[in-house]
């Protein structure tokens, strides 16, 4: 059920982190659209499969275009949209299962191309929609429906992976502060190149990490989330790598590097090789 479609038969669980991410994305789209004067119809949301992907049906306000494809393929679909129509503001919404497990192979190529898109990754450390299986970011030893005796695989560190693969904009945040999160999503949209905003978005049903992230003094939980210090230099790869050595979840911009985008390089090639007409192509086979 959504505000615009009462018949829509999907709903997030009460308290799901994705509600906060949705607000943040709505604000970011609105601000980006206003600031850049890009019409809302130029916004394209490419959704993954999982709870988070349903975001594309739940957005309120000016409706963007959406494509809700198949599991793990948000990046190639977004690549097709963006390379075919560079003027479109292309945004991926996907979860840790879709993006980091079945779809992980596409992150490297997208980073090497410096594809000018923004990915909002909702990490809840679990496969929620299929009812609670282990995901790449599930912690070691965690009991899930698919690891009944505890997970025996160490969790992936998504932010370090992004850095290693050459992603040119890496931010990290959580769903509980949608205003702040919106700022980083908008920065990702403004960044010329491949942007990932990795969001801790807890699953209240299968992996409720709110207390762990924010801490709870009464329960004596310290909280793993910490704000990126103001003195951090996000343009320094070394500083970013050092920052990620600190345990817990950073909130803020980790890394940003200005590099030529795929489109920039493509335009250079087009200048040198303007192409020929189909009739001229036929002539190359004349006998």
């Amino acid at each position, binding site marked *: 059920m959504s505000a615009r479609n009462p018949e829509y038969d999907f709903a997030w669980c009460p308290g799901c982190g994705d509600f906060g991410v949705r607000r943040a994305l709505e604000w970011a789209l609105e601000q980006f659209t206003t600031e850049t004067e890009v019409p809302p119809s130029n916004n394209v949301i490419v959704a993954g499969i999982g709870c988070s992907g349903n975001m594309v049906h739940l957005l309120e306000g000016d409706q963007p275009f959406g*494509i*809700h494809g198949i599991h793990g393929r948000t990046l*190639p679909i977004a*690549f097709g949209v963006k390379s075919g129509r560079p003027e479109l503001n292309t945004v991926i919404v996907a979860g840790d299962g879709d993006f980091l497990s079945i779809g992980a192979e596409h992150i490297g190529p997208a980073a090497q191309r410096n594809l000018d898109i923004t990915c909002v990754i909702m990490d809840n450390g679990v496969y929620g929609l299929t009812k609670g299986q282990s995901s790449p970011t599930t912690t070691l030893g965690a009991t899930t429906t698919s690891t009944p005796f505890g997970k025996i695989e160490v969790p992936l560190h998504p932010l370090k992976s992004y850095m290693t693969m050459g992603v040119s904009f890496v931010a990290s945040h959580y769903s509980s502060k949608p205003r702040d999160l919106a700022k980083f999503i908008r920065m990702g949209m403004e960044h010329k190149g491949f942007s990932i905003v990795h969001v801790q978005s807890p699953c209240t049903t299968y992996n409720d990490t709110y207390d762990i992230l924010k801490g709870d003094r009464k329960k004596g939980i310290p909280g793993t989330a910490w704000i990126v210090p103001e003195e951090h230099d996000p343009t320094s790869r070394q500083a970013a790598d050092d920052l990620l050595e600190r345990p817990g979840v950073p909130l803020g911009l980790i890394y940003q590097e200005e590099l030529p985008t795929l489109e920039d390089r493509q335009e250079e090639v087009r200048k040198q090789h303007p192409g020929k007409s189909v009739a001229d192509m036929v002539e190359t086979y004349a006998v």
Partner: protein
Amino acid sequence: MQREDFVVRFAGEGGQGLVTSADALARAAVRAGYFAQTFSTFPSQIMGGPASSQVRISNKPVLSNGDHVDILVALNQYAYDNHNEELGPDGVTIYNAEEFDLPSGGQYFGVKADELAKSTGNARAANMVTIGAVATLMGFPLAEIDAYVTERFTRGRPGDDEIIKANIEAIRLGAGVAEESGFSVGQLAPPNAPDYEQIMITGNAALSLGAVAAGLDYYVGYPISPATTILIWMENNLVGKDRFTYQVASELEAISTIVGAGYAGKKAMTATAGPGVSLMSEGLGLAWMAEIPLVVVDIQRGGPATGLPTKSEQSDLLACLHPAHGDVKMPVLAPGSVEECFYAGALAVNWAERYQGPVMLMSEFGQAERGENIRKPDVSAVKQETRSVYTGENGYKRYVSWDGTEELPPMPIPGGTGAYVANGSEHDEIGDTTHLPRHHIRLTERRFKKLDLLKDAPREIEGDAPIAIMTWGSSKGPAREAYERLKAEGSDISWIYSVALNPLPDDVLDALKQKELVLVPELNYQGQWAGLLRQEGVRAESITQYTGLPFKPGDLVDLIKARIEAKEKAGAAR
């Protein structure tokens, strides 16, 4: 003895210029007004390994590789041992006397091509020594080869003249050896030069050109034999403003990428072979479900798994019709000649746009790399269909029910009005996910009903005889040659052919159903097309071959005759 056609085969190792030799001879022949078709077979490795390349030259359009080899050029002992059995009764071998020797008294003679080429001052002219000998054996005028060489090496560079002179001298030296040998395979009949402009092109290049002529402006691909040449063609040609070509990281990426591009308004295509079709399965289902125009080309090779990467087989038909799980039946075009590749390339793009969905375009190794002279296509006459684009108010319902009585509703394009969600989950009118039976019923019916828009592919229906030949794809050439021979011999047989395998045009299906027996030559074990025709109520029997090589028309003549006789006997016994 005057003869209408000859087959010349160059056999040796990969990297020895076999393809170059066959191509040069073909071009010289076409230049002289003949028809030519080349065919190569090579192992899946970069250099070396047993390989061969052949050309069939004729004074009428060439339909197949023929039955026998008339002149074999064997560059090593292995090549001779492996190919001499394919020589026809009067066939002659020219062997590389610098590499091996054969006992005296056979239908062969040796040439020291490298040594003779060196004597002209141009060691690279060795293949022209051989071509001079070949031309002499079949009575092909040397002057025509001289003219070809002159044209080819007139490049406006210093030294052109010397190269031309050395090559012409090499041709004469080879011719001299052939004359001394005393052998001849006959005299090539005078040409019937076509009165239209021609191009010399391979199947894969023709297919690519056809797609671009219909307005294709987006291509991504992943290297895979025998479809790689399409990627390379696109990388070189589909460039410039508003065009995009890219080598992606996998076939999984390729299909999803063209889904994105097709959704965003581009005319998008990828090409692959069987293994890639397997990987594209889910993405093709998405294109069908969300109704995204795109074209997937399958250049078949032997399968399954890695199979026979550089061999001929037509065993992907079931996979291309039903690449995806669920209720899906893809439109399939399967051109049967190099010229048909051009027009099918264009039609595939037009079909995708017209019915707003994915189209499968099937070719095959033998047809992909075969070079042939065809009528020069008039690109200005190629129809360019573009999807109907929505321009109305926002709040559009793209996925309404559709029963074919009205025009297919237009498709919104990002940047324009009518924002919606293209959804791989079953959806309602605006693209939101739904599990309600009524939506699944009405949209399943809509997706199948749209195929009715695609009944305009070229077809051939000839003759009233109760027994018909109905082949498909690249087996058309040899089957057609067999059909023409059978007709000439007085067999009572008819011919039905369709470039579209799904949907079959109504008149084709009607004609097929009227036949008492439909014989289906196809290169696979299961008789895939014959089985599908039987599902449609056609009395179809397959004639299968799974050697990794194309049919020979002579073999088909024998096999078809045997089936006709068996049917007559069965009839008499009743």
